[in-house]
């Protein structure tokens, strides 16, 4: 089949690449258009992830406070200070803060101690099943920004099929050094209470249907 075509720079660029697919020239031109659209959208001065999560978490906190004021909860309202020791709060984005539905996002407000600037977290079901949040399987615990107070971790977690509805304990592990999952398991020990050099903080958490 013969299909004569107009020979312009874009066609020549495709010929030079040896593939009849969009060339670098077409891609670059398209990106300029895309970026023009994106740049025209409102921008944020604050870290956008944090801004978005704070906004969502703040709305959820207000809703939770209004609806469940009499109920004691360990998920204190946003703005209250975390103690000056390693601590964290899981914040469910878009839902009541202490309850997540499958598919929703979970954020972490973390306060690191001065000697434990690395953080890892996993959830544990009553039957002992563990769902790792971070580090990744081949990674190490994440570094925390020394903010002098609490800060929102720029890692989030999506509640997926591996976390069906039910009650969980979230373990936050603060360490002096970045640790892999294997190293964390060793450091935690069988009783999950930890050892010298790491601090373990537990939080209750609910995934609702």
């Amino acid at each position: 089949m013969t299909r004569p075509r107009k020979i312009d720079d874009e066609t020549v660029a495709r010929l030079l690449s040896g593939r009849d697919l969009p060339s670098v020239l077409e891609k670059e031109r398209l990106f300029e258009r895309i970026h023009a659209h994106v740049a025209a959208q409102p921008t944020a001065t604050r870290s956008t992830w944090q801004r978005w999560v704070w906004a969502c978490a703040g709305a959820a906190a207000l809703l939770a406070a209004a609806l469940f004021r009499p109920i004691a909860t360990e998920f204190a309202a946003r703005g209250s200070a975390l103690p000056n020791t390693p601590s964290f709060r899981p914040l469910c984005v878009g839902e009541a803060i202490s309850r997540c539905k499958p598919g929703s996002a979970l954020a972490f407000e973390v306060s690191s101690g001065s000697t434990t600037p690395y953080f890892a977290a996993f959830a544990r079901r009553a039957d002992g099943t563990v769902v790792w949040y971070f580090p990744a399987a081949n990674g190490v615990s994440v570094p925390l920004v020394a903010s002098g107070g609490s800060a929102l971790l720029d890692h989030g977690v999506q509640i997926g099929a591996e976390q069906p509805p039910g009650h969980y304990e979230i373990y936050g592990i603060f360490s002096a050094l970045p640790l892999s999952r294997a190293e964390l398991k060793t450091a935690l020990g069988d009783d999950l209470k930890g050892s010298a050099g790491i601090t373990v903080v537990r939080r209750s958490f609910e995934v609702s249907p």
Partner: protein
Amino acid sequence: MPIFAKSRVLLDRFRSGDRAALAEVYRFYFEDVYRLAQYGFVTRGGVRAASLSREADRLDFVQDLFVKAFSESARCGYDGLRPYRPFLLQIARNLRIDQLRQSNREPSASELGHGFDVDIDALIESNGAWPDASPGDPDLHWQRLLQETSTVLGTLDTEVKTIAELRFSQELSQADVAERLGITRRRVRTLEGRLLRGVRKHLSRAGLTPEEK
């Protein structure tokens, strides 16, 4: 390797909307999105989105997708933990279906005979590779153009040949080519323009442009 697994710094820059980071993500995933437009797909729910046959429509779709995926809400909606590709393809899948619905062309099983019947939901779940395109009918005109382009490339000096390789085969930016070769970006631009004009002129002389017929 997923793009953000290589660099946490890139993820931070991406989330903040940094232009260079967006460009890097765009280049990395362009082909995936283009293929979704090129091949079409079926969903587990029985929705069928036919392939887009016109090149302009494919590129329009790619543009719409990246504008959506690079919006602040989408950038921040990505958790940074899972691979980015399934996240992006999910947005592309939903956008394509929305576009069909908005154009009053309810995607349905009646749109048969196009694309590869890629199960998009399975592909997103497995983060698997796209199927290879079947060769189809040989485009004799394209083959002839390729031959002539190869001929004219053989007559060019080494510097221009290197620019052709880096710029068009490896798809480096002009700035990266300049850095790689230790020359100015202006020189890369000049030589690139000369290369494109030279090939065009050669193809015209060979009677391969529609105007010559």
